[in-house]
């Protein structure tokens, strides 16, 4: 499909929305509720653009104002994201969001990665352009890992979708209606008393600082941390994680949105259970027991010892005298290698996995 965005011509594959097309071409359109994983909610109405030359939208001649997140591109469409009319519509929504909550960027954990902040900055908001209302922090600190500030919440609906349709935990609900509507957990309980399992999917999709990871508070601004991709060490699923590292220490863990198999999702252990890395009791080198006491050894020495003992046992008692139990924390691939080692190299079928028993 041949479309024009802000006067530039682009070739866009069919079935894309205007927002997706613009994002793919590096053109920013303010949006608060759209998330790639969730799709178009068309809730915030901030992604308004002017559209012309589309027969299906009755916009053949004069441009019409439409939400770009749920309008599909058609051939010959002319899109203007930065006209006075489009910008006024975008600013209106950002004004409403800024004027109706506790947007204390200075002390907000999300500062620097906040989509409301980005939109306001992009649209060149000044102090006089919105009303600072009296919205004190309304914090629900009852759960173990997630901090909720209801007055920072802009009710974009992402966490609702994430909890109900992505993680499918069904905990987050919309309580009340209209201006007083807010997110709630189960029947409007504090998060810590609800059936929430603290998977943290909601904090990952929250565009503002309403849902934040408690463990990361004060440990590093978003621009100070380096992201490192890794595989979750907890189970065989092998979820792809992004470690947020500052000065050699993990300050936060998020799921890799573009990584399979989890596509951004993590469980409570994967997202928040990273303290063990820094445990004093953690084994960091192989240990060999001699005369009832452990001594440190090199990997080569330890592996040679194990191989030697295995060979001796096989010669003396046959391969079935050996059995292997694979650890539940190893990845699927590692467990596969483990059974391959036992079946083809050691020639025994005595192989099992601790999660099966």
């Amino acid at each position, binding site marked *: 499909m041949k479309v024009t965005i802000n006067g530039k011509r682009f070739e866009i594959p069919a079935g894309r929305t205007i927002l997706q097309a613009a994002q793919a071409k590096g053109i920013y359109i303010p949006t*608060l509720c759209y998330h790639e994983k969730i799709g*178009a909610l*068309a*809730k*915030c*109405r*901030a992604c*308004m653009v002017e559209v012309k030359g589309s027969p299906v939208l009755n916009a053949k001649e004069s441009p019409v*104002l439409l939400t770009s997140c*749920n309008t599909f591109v058609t051939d010959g469409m002319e899109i203007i994201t930065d006209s006075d009319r489009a910008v006024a*519509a975008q600013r*209106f*929504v950002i004004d*409403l*969001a800024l*004027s*109706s909550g506790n947007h204390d960027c200075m002390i907000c954990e999300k500062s620097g990665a906040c989509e409301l902040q980005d939109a306001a900055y992009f649209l060149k908001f000044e102090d006089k352009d919105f009303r600072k209302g009296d919205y004190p922090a309304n914090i629900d600190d009852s759960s173990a890992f997630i901090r909720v500030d209801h007055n920072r919440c*802009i*009710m974009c*609906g992402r966490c609702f979708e994430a909890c109900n349709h992505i993680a499918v935990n069904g905990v987050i609900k*919309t309580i*009340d*209606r*209209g*201006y*007083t*509507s807010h997110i709630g957990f189960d029947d409007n309980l504090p998060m810590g008393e609800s059936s929430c399992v603290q998977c943290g999917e909601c904090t990952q999709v929250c565009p503002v600082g309403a849902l934040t990871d408690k463990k990361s508070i004060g440990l590093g601004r978003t621009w100070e941390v380096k992201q490192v991709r890794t595989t979750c060490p907890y189970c065989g699923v092998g979820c792809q994680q992004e470690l947020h590292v500052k000065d050699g220490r993990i300050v936060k863990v998020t799921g890799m949105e573009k990584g399979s198999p989890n596509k951004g999702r993590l469980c409570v252990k994967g997202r928040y259970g990273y303290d063990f890395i820094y445990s004093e009791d953690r084994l960091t080198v192989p240990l060999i027991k001699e005369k009832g006491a452990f001594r440190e050894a090199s990997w080569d020495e330890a592996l040679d010892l194990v191989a030697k003992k295995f060979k001796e046992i096989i010669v003396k008692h046959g391969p079935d005298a050996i059995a292997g139990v694979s650890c539940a924390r190893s990845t699927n691939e590692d467990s596969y290698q483990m059974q391959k080692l036992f079946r083809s190299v050691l020639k025994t079928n005595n192989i099992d996995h601790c999660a099966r028993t």
Partner: protein
Amino acid sequence: MTNWEPVLLANVNRPNSEKIDTYLRYGGYEALRKALKMTPDQVTAEVKTSEIRGRGGAGFPAGVKWGFMPKDAPVKYLAINTDEGEPGTFKDRLIVERDPHSILEGVIIASYAIGAHRAFVYIRGEFFLGVKRWIKAISDAYQKGFLGKNILGSGFDLDVSVHRGAGAYICGEETAMLESLEGKRGVPRTKPPFPAQKGFWGKPTLVQNCETLANIPHIILRGGKWYSSIGTEKSKGMKIFCISGHVNSPGNFELPLGTPLKEIIYEHAGGVRKGRDIKAIIPGGSSTPFLTAEKINTPMGFETLQAAGSALGTGAIIVMDETTDMVEVVRRITRFYVHESCGYCFPCRIGGQRMLSSLERLAGGKGSKQDIEDLEYVAKGIYGRTFCPMGTGMAEPVLSGLRLFRPEFEMKTAKN
């Protein structure tokens, strides 16, 4: 005064009008017998010929909507919208309470035409009597063989049940109604897909207002041509006008579309109280823009009211005399919409409250010029940009109030 023979309200003043025996005595279910001998396509064609437009507010041609229903879909539904919530409107309530069988007959004919075997009545929860009457009408119709398996030996099956709403104005919007009917929070859906493509449980669904359906038996019995001979060029048929406000005899009046506003107010509703002059008229329920007294000769039709700067909506006329405080009127209407906003999209949720704060300050005599400016800025921002049409309905009274009665708003700020 022209006296029209009532069509929709012919039955309502008879004793025991809600009973099936009364309905049958005056020719009830004859249209159904006739329709079942026609093919479904012939029934739809007759409705198309009548050019009847939906009576729920939007005025979409009913026959065209029926034609949108896919023919080859195995499962289809009909949903009957009795969630009458627009302030000033009380026409559906009258038909449901006094003549439920006229709607039910329309329901069966419509289901036959579109090939639906399951129909749901979504009724406003506060209509306690209406709910009882609907349920009674349905169970009587089952007993007489107008519902259930093999209706009147035609081989057509239909089951109808009643679902009570829980008190949300937004559930009168067709997609929010379907969400609510499915047991979810009453929030509108994105259109497209329209309910005719993906409606109740994702299946093609026809959503129709009950006044529209009450017209169907008459269209089938007397023919679409007869129906289209009544009314104006683009607004056909009889319409129940609900008139309230500062008139001497408020109530429901059934008149042809195109009847001038002046005739309805002065001849049918007995004129304005104490012989006063009119300051403003809301012609189609509180979400339609105000008209001033100059527009009193406007015929009550879809296209004529649009030309006059308003809309027919539900046909609920609210008359305000010269003593009315228009700022207070706008505040009251806005308060209603803010209370009823579902909270889904930002402009309606936050913008509505911001308009209400400004209006409260103005009405309380504590407003400033800036409040008027902000009110206009927010109303323009909401207009046409919300997820569903309710936001626009919320902005209309504010914008038209400011357009027509701005000096009154400014007077309120005089002291500050």
